[in-house]
C-alpha cells in the first residue's frame, strides 16, 4: 500500500437510458447504492463532492449541495466541480485530496445528468467570445466533426479502415450485453454498423456515442477507515493515482471546441501529446506502467477514438491500435480488455456521471463482481477520459 492510496469502499450506478426524469433522482439512487455497497450510513459521510451538469438549471451548477439536500442535510462539507466530460474525476480528485490531507475520512462523489436528444449544442443566446459558440456558428462544427477529424487521420496515416472502426462497436456492444447498467444491450455486426447513416465521414451513426441520462457514485475513504470498517472483508480496491492534467504549450492536436491549434513556430512540439500525457501522469504517480494493467476503460466517444486511446494510454505504439484490435488483445479474454463495461458505445454519455461510471466498472472488475463481462484475475485497471477545454482525466485503481 502506497502513502497516497485511498480506498473505494462503495460504488453505485443508476441505469443509463433516456428516462427524461430529474437528474437528482439518478444521482440519489446511485449514491444510495454506493453507500449500501460500502456498508455505511449517509450520516457518516463527511464530504460530498458533486460533478456538475450544465443542462439542468441551477441545481446542476451546485450539484454537491443538490445531492446533499436530497439525501438530507447533515452538515457535511461540500464541493461542486465542472470539467465537462472530466467533471466526475475532478470531483473524485477533490474528495481524494481532502482525504489525503487528513481533513476527512469518508467522502461521497456523485454525478448525474438528464440530457436532451440529438447533438450536444451550446446554450442559447449569441456569445461571440465563446469558442464553443463560435465553432457552431462559424464552421457548423459539431462534436462528431472533431471525432471524424481524428478518425480520418487514422485512415490516411495508418491505413485504418471503416471495418476496423466498426469492429470496435461490435466488440463493445458484445461486452455491454451483460451489463445491467448499459442503455443499449444489443449485439451489432460490422455490416449493421457500416449500414447505419453516415454522420461525419468516415463515422456512421452507430459509431458515435449518444447522450444519455444516468448517475454514478463512489464512496472514497482513507485506508485506515477502510481497514477499521471492512474487518474481515478483505483489502478494498484502492485509488493509486488520479490525473487531472492540462495540455502543455504548444497543444498541436485540434480538439473541441477550438478552431485552431497552438503554434509550433517558436516552441517545439513536446514529448507527449495532451492525450498521451493524461495516462502518463497517472502511471508516474502510481509507479506502474501500462504493462501492469489488467484492463482499461477509455472514452469511446467514437469507435476510432477508442483506437487513439490504445496508443494514448501506452497499450501499443502509434499506428498499431488496429492490429491490437484485430489480434483480439482488447476483447474480453484478450491480453488487455478495453471497455469491458461496453463503454460509451453501450451507455451513451451522461457527462458528469461518465468518468465516475468508469471508476465503478473498474472497481467491480477488480473485485471480481463484473458478472458476464469479468476480466479474469484483474489486479489493476485504468480509466481515461478528456473534458472539453483541456481537462485530462484518468484514474488508476489497484486491488
Amino acid at each position: 500500500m502506497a502513502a497516497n492510496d485511498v480506498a473505494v469502499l462503495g460504488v453505485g450506478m443508476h441505469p443509463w437510458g433516456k428516462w427524461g426524469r430529474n437528474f437528482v433522482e439518478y444521482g440519489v439512487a446511485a449514491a444510495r447504492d454506493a453507500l449500501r455497497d460500502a456498508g455505511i450510513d449517509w450520516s457518516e459521510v463527511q464530504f460530498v463532492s458533486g460533478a456538475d451538469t450544465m443542462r439542468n438549471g441551477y441545481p446542476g451548477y451546485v450539484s454537491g449541495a443538490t445531492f446533499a439536500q436530497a439525501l438530507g442535510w447533515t452538515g457535511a462539507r461540500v464541493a461542486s466541480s465542472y470539467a465537462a466530460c472530466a467533471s466526475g474525476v475532478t470531483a473524485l480528485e477533490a474528495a481524494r485530496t481532502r482525504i489525503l490531507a487528513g481533513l476527512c475520512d469518508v467522502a461521497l462523489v456523485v454525478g448525474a445528468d438528464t440530457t436532451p436528444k440529438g447533438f450536444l449544442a451550446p446554450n442559447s443566446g449569441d456569445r461571440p467570445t465563446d469558442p464553443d459558440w463560435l465553432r457552431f456558428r462559424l464552421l457548423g462544427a459539431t462534436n462528431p466533426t472533431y471525432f471524424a477529424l481524428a478518425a480520418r487521420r487514422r485512415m490516411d496515416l495508418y491505413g485504418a479502415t471503416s471495418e476496423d472502426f466498426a469492429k470496435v462497436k461490435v466488440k463493445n456492444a458484445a461486452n455491454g450485453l451483460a451489463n445491467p447498467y448499459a442503455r443499449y444491450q444489443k449485439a451489432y455486426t460490422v455490416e449493421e454498423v457500416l449500414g447505419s447513416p453516415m454522420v461525419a465521414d468516415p463515422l456512421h451513426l452507430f459509431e458515435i456515442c449518444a447522450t444519455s441520462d444516468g448517475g454514478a457514485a463512489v464512496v472514497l475513504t482513507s485506508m485506515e477507515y477502510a481497514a477499521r470498517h471492512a474487518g474481515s472483508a478483505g483489502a478494498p480496491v484502492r485509488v493509486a493515482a488520479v490525473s487531472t492534467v492540462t495540455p502543455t504549450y504548444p497543444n498541436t492536436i485540434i480538439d473541441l471546441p477550438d478552431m485552431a491549434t497552438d503554434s509550433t513556430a517558436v516552441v517545439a512540439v513536446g514529448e507527449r501529446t495532451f492525450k498521451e500525457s493524461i495516462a502518463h501522469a497517472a502511471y508516474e504517480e502510481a509507479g506502474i506502467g501500462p504493462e501492469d494493467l489488467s484492463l482499461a476503460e477509455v472514452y469511446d466517444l467514437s469507435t476510432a477514438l477508442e483506437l487513439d486511446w490504445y496508443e494514448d494510454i501506452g497499450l501499443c505504439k502509434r499506428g498499431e491500435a488496429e492490429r491490437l484490435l484485430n489480434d483480439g488483445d482488447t476483447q474480453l479474454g484478450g491480453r488487455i480488455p478495453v471497455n469491458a463495461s461496453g463503454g460509451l458505445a453501450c451507455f451513451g454519455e451522461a457527462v458528469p456521471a461518465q468518468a465516475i461510471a468508469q471508476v465503478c466498472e473498474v472497481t467491480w472488475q477488480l473485485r471480481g463482481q463484473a458478472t458476464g463481462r469479468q476480466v479474469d484475475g484483474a489486479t489493476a485497471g485504468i480509466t481515461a477520459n478528456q473534458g472539453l477545454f483541456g481537462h485530462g482525466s484518468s484514474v488508476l485503481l489497484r486491488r
Partner: protein
Amino acid sequence: MTTTTRVPALGAEGWFTPDDPEPALLGMRCTTCGTYVFPKADFGCPNPACVGLAFDEVRLSRFGTVWSYTDARYQPPAPYVVPTEEHEPFCIAAVHLADEGLVVMGQMVPGVTVDDLRVGLPVELVVDTLFTEGEVEHVIWKWKPVTEGGAD
C-alpha cells in the same frame, strides 16, 4: 435590384480580410517571443515562457495542406445558420500552415466532397458566404483545393 452588404460573420470580425482579392487570415505575432496566435491573443502571449503582451497583426499564409477532414451530413444545431433552403452537406478541413506552425479549421467551399480530399492536399484560403440574412451577406473564410497549374 437590392444591394447586399457584406459583413464578417459575428464573432469573426478582424479575423480575416473580407474584401481582399487575395484574402488572408489575420493572426497575431508576439513581439517578444515571435510565436503566432490565431484567432486572437486576448489575454497575452499563450507561450508560458513568455510574458509578452504586445502583438503585431500579421497576414497568415494563404496556402496550407489538409491535416484532416470530414463532412457534415446532418444539419448542425443553432447557432449554426443554414444558408440554403435545406441543409446541404459540406466539408470541414483542418489545415496546416507550415510557416506559422498552426492548424486552422474551416469549411471547404461548396461542391467539394470528402472524395476530393486527402491528408496533405494543398488548399488555399478564400472568403465566401456563411449565410445571407435579408440584404446582409455574412462572410467567413473557407478552404478551397488548389487548382491544377498552381496557385493562380
